[in-house]
């Protein structure tokens, strides 16, 4: 239930503008990888290419390869819908479906993908996903109320529950804690630690402590200047990045002498 991702010479464009240049990376299964770097360096852009979500943006295109357990997700005949069923995503802003109850939100992915669930199966899946997202105890008494009635942190965890309910192989998270208080943040960090047992997790964060706490590997991206493409500067074990990075640029960013 987890896949290895190999990124080979990945270039990403918005229309004529090249946003990211030449990314090479190998993400191991059952690991947490953190993307860090200054604003605008292309972290979200790279993340979104891992489940072909950036195709939603008109004019966006990709050159290069993203191999998931050896098969290119940009290969001929690959359906992005199938890719996204394998690679789930949690966004910066919690976005539960406003017309659905908490339970319906959790089951949305499964139901919308035409799987019929008996009532017992649905209840079981709801509980498993919500427990997986550390939310079960808080909402078990109000599963049929609207998801938008939860607090921001709860909504974000509901979105995580929704993403893991379809049992993806990989989970992408784009600054999942940026709008949350320290306690909710901690809850989500604990959750990421648990998720690692089953999923490959990639997380974008601006919080270095968070990257240091949750990730096994860290990728540092940087940008030479506005209008220039972002580049992967260093990809290494998190402990190395935060104690003794190979590149000076990384060192400067980590120690706050830059950006």
């Amino acid at each position: 239930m987890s896949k290895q991702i190999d990124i080979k010479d990945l270039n990403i464009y918005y229309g004529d503008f090249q946003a990211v240049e030449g990314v090479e990376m190998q993400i191991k299964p059952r690991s947490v990888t953190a993307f860090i770097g200054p604003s605008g360096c292309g972290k979200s852009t790279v993340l979104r290419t891992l489940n072909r979500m950036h195709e939603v943006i008109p004019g966006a295109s990709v050159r290069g390869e993203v191999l998931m357990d050896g098969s290119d997700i940009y290969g001929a005949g690959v359906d992005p819908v199938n890719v996204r069923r394998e690679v789930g995503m949690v966004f910066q802003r919690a976005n539960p479906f406003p017309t659905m109850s908490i339970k319906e939100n959790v089951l949305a992915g499964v139901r919308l993908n035409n799987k019929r669930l008996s009532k017992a199966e649905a209840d079981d899946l709801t509980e498993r996903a919500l427990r997986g997202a550390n939310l079960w105890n808080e909402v078990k008494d109000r599963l049929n109320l609207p998801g938008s009635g939860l607090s921001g942190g709860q909504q974000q965890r509901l979105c995580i529950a929704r993403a893991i309910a379809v049992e993806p192989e990989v989970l992408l998270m784009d600054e999942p804690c940026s709008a949350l208080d320290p306690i909710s943040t901690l809850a989500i960090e604990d959750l990421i630690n648990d998720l690692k047992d089953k999923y490959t997790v990639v997380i974008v964060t601006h919080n270095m402590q968070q990257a240091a706490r949750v990730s096994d590997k860290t990728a540092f991206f940087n940008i030479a200047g506005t209008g220039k493409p972002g580049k992967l500067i260093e990809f290494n074990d998190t402990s190395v990045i935060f104690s003794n990075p190979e590149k000076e640029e990384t060192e400067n960013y980590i120690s706050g002498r830059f950006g």
Partner: protein
Amino acid sequence: MLTTSDTTPSRSRSLTSKQLPKATPWVIAVASIIVAAGISFLGLGRFSITVTAVLAGALNAIAVFAISAAYEGRRKAVDRVATTVVSSTFVLACVPLISLLWLTVSKGGAALDLNLLSRTMLGMKGILDQQYVAGEAGLAGGFYHAIVGTVLITLAACVISIPVGVLAAIYLVEYAGKNKLGKAITFLVDVMTGIPSIVAGLFAFALFSTIAELVMPAAAGVAKTGFTAAVALSVLMIPIVVRNTEEILRLVPMDLREASYALGVPKWKTIVKIVLPTSVSGILSGVTIAIARVIGETAPIMVTAGFAKTLNWNLFSGWMSTLPTYIYDSQLRPVSPGDAAIASSERAWAAALVLVALVMILNLLARVIAKVLAPKAGR
């Protein structure tokens, strides 16, 4: 050398200032109206609403400024005058609406009864109206057929325009992006919005006449049916539905679509299960407003469905009346000439009241729909 001690007192300003009591503007307004009415009475020898209103407005503005300037100072006086002008303009804007409603309710309400609602103009003769005017009989005739015609034609127009309009809007928002076809559709919709309704009627009539000629030559009149009228109304309704729906669909946050795509849900299903349910209340109220807009159309109905005197349930054959064409016909061609034409006029006012009520109900319905179906955010 130390001048600070001299300037300090002058720098410290008071935060309080003189203020007129809250009720002052109202008192001034009422006083202005009374004075204006008095002047109008003395000057003209009779009471005139127009003169009183204009005078009262001017007097009020002057008095507010003078009193406020004398007591509160210039800045507040200007503020008060601005407030007075804005509120008076608002009242002015309400005058046509309220007097229209008042006129319709008083004139229509006087004539309206169950008989009018349940009878048609079948067997109407001038003599019946003359008897009514002479006080020998009740008001004869009715417009049941026109109510039925209005409902049928409007329903048919909805059946045509709602799917076309909503689907076109979905295409524009979800699929077209910035492509040529999308731009062309947007342009055509803009043009269609400005089409005079009589032209829409002529278009529908010409279209069905051509078809009728082809199918059964020499049968010119058969193109005048309720369905032709419905097509004419659709030409007017589709652009409104497209515009309203498009606006509402663009309000659905991109986040929700992305959340759905990220779950591996295909695009069409995202639209049907996520985007439409989120926006259904807005779409429906937009549709209701479009209906309210076309239900009162007269010109396109006249040229497409003619004027029926009797009940016709068949949209596809024979003439039909709607409330607007009934009103028009009653005013223009009264059943009885001369003094008894007043009877036709009374029926027309009653029909107008029913029409206005229908439009109001539709507008209220739009609000209720929007409230009931809107996504709930409560805990």
